[in-house]
């Protein structure tokens, strides 16, 4: 196993659920005890439904939010609480993020050139007189030609797919080690999604970038990723090599997600799924116990009392479930919080 490009341990983010100044405030536990590592040349998919906290994880790693607790380990150092401009800049020159909405992530009054030039200048990537050449090179890398022509455009003059390519080019300007991609294709037309996914695959292979691919789409996660993290209500409920997890999911929630996904190969025979009502979103002041317990067909007595730990029940594959991955079955994948 190669060295981690970026690692998070027991990451936690709470948002105040009310604006009370006196007494006990309640908090939404958007991200709760999340630990994983991203490795160079590997795409890790972070899969979950809306509100599960998956985008919050990406934004925490992009340092757009400060974590409530836990550490972000980059080059052997915990950077989560180092807010000096120098340290933040160094981090930003290595860890970049691709946003979901290419219509919102580019400044409408700035040219494409501006978007690509700024990171080059901020981080002093190239000499001043080489900036233009580098801008062209970046545009060519993401398949936008002729670059001189594209650079003068404003975002609204490009299609969604072209804009997303510009957004990717911008992240590449700093020659990043880690790329966080937050549902980069969900706002795009179907016929151009594959192009963006293929571009990410190419970057992974050619530049050895460590990707975090945040998505709700299991099929594209399988297409792209090597590893998978399944998130439910702020916690990682299952993790492991993606083929292994999808072929033999441990956690009942992973099974539910898998059965709900449309699969063109499965044919026209409609599969029926049985669902109990419940929400995948993070809860306000959640009680102890498994968060999936209300919807779980396998729930036993202990589930509503004790929060399950991530346990490596199969080699490399861990789940947070008292039934399918009981603590006796394997070793705790990560040391528990307390």
């Amino acid at each position: 196993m190669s060295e981690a490009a970026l690692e998070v341990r027991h990451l936690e983010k709470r948002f105040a659920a009310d604006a009370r100044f006196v007494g006990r405030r309640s908090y939404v536990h958007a991200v709760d005890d999340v630990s994983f590592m991203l490795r160079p040349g590997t795409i890790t998919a972070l899969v979950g439904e809306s509100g599960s906290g998956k985008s919050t994880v990406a934004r925490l790693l992009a340092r757009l939010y400060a974590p409530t607790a836990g550490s972000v380990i980059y080059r052997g150092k915990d950077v989560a609480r180092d807010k000096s401009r120098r340290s933040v800049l160094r981090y930003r020159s290595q860890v970049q993020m691709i946003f979901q909405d290419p219509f919102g992530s580019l400044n409408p009054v700035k040219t494409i050139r501006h978007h690509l030039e700024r990171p080059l200048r901020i981080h002093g990537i190239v000499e001043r007189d080489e900036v233009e050449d580098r801008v062209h090179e970046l545009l060519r890398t993401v398949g936008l030609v002729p670059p001189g022509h594209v650079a003068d455009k404003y975002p609204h003059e490009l299609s969604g797919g072209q804009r997303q390519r510009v957004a990717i080019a911008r992240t590449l300007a700093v020659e990043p080690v880690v790329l966080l991609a937050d549902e980069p294709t969900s706002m795009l037309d179907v016929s151009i999604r594959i192009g963006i996914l293929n571009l990410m695959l190419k970057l992974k292979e050619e530049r050895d970038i460590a990707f975090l691919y945040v998505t709700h789409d299991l099929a594209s996660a399988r297409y792209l990723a090597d590893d998978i993290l399944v998130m439910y209500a702020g916690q990682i409920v299952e993790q492991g090599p993606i083929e292994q997890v999808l072929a033999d999911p441990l956690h009942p929630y992973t099974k539910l997600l898998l059965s709900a996904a449309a699969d063109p190969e499965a044919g026209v025979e409609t599969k029926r799924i049985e669902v109990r009502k419940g929400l995948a979103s993070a809860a306000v002041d959640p009680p102890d116990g498994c968060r999936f317990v209300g919807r779980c067909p396998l729930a036993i007595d202990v589930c509503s009392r004790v929060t399950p730990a991530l346990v490596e029940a199969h080699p490399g594959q861990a789940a947070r479930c008292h039934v399918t991955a009981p603590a006796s079955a394997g070793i705790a994948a990560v040391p528990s919080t307390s």
Partner: protein
Amino acid sequence: MTEVIEPMPAAPAIPAPGVPIIELRQLAVEYGAGDRSVRAVDGVDLAVHAGEVVGLAGESGCGKSTVANAIMQILRPPARIAGGSILFRGEDLVDKGREELRRYRWRNVAMVFQSAMSSLNPVMRVGDQFVDMMRAHEPVSRNAALARAEELLGVVGIDRRRVRAFPHELSGGMRQRVIIAMALALEPQLLIMDEPTTALDVVVQREILQQVQDLQREFGFAILFITHDLSLLIEFADRIAIMYAGEIVETAPSARLQASPRHPYTRGLMESFPPLTGPLRRLVGIPGAPPDLSAVPPGCRFHPRCPLCVPEQPVMFARQTTERPVLRELEPGHFVACHAAGAST
């Protein structure tokens, strides 16, 4: 309900006989007028028969939502019907007066919009919105309408007591169910669903679709299901029509379309959805982007992106770039608008 309809078999190879509920003939819709007009829908033929689930798939801007709005007769200027006809049970809607159209909407054809979840009035109780809607169409008492509302909520799997709820007290999925219940209130013969579940999570989406399918089998209404998600349609629809740049390029029963798509655009779309099971290979998708409708390519609109359109075959190339293909029936029930499709199999 005008007639009792047996549930359709999973995938009929041939459309059900008889007069279709809705039939579009060479429908054209334009936005704007004069030189600046844009044809969003250009010469669309489509029929939906009783009890049938028809899927209409395509990318954003291909005109699929415009088709739905035209059927509902809710096009607003600058959009207007520029040609063709919309037949409801054989009668052309173009001849109808405003009052007739008002009664036609919702009673005969109801629609669940893309933004349906936000189309509930936030300051009115769910039940009152039912009452308002029903009393706009039928002389029913408030209590009778409320009773019907409760019944319908039960049908879509929501606790009946929720008639007293305000929309914000319901989750996204529940609001979508409420909208579906409202659409079914007057027992329409056709339910149009325009991207009804795109904003919902996969699990909720699946639940709602299953419910709609159950209701459809029970009550026998027809569905026109509009989405960009072809893999969803293959499971859900009996028959699928694929739209590209304002035209229908292929229509076939779902199983057939999945087994042997004939139009290169359909094939490209299929190539755009990675499989969840089975072997993985590098997909290519479709190069380029859909055309700007104010400047559609001459000839076949797909030709700039088409792998079958190559200058190395000059005769075919000339045809593809100058002559507009029309839908041809390659096999029973399977229509394709492509010059090259018949030749290659």
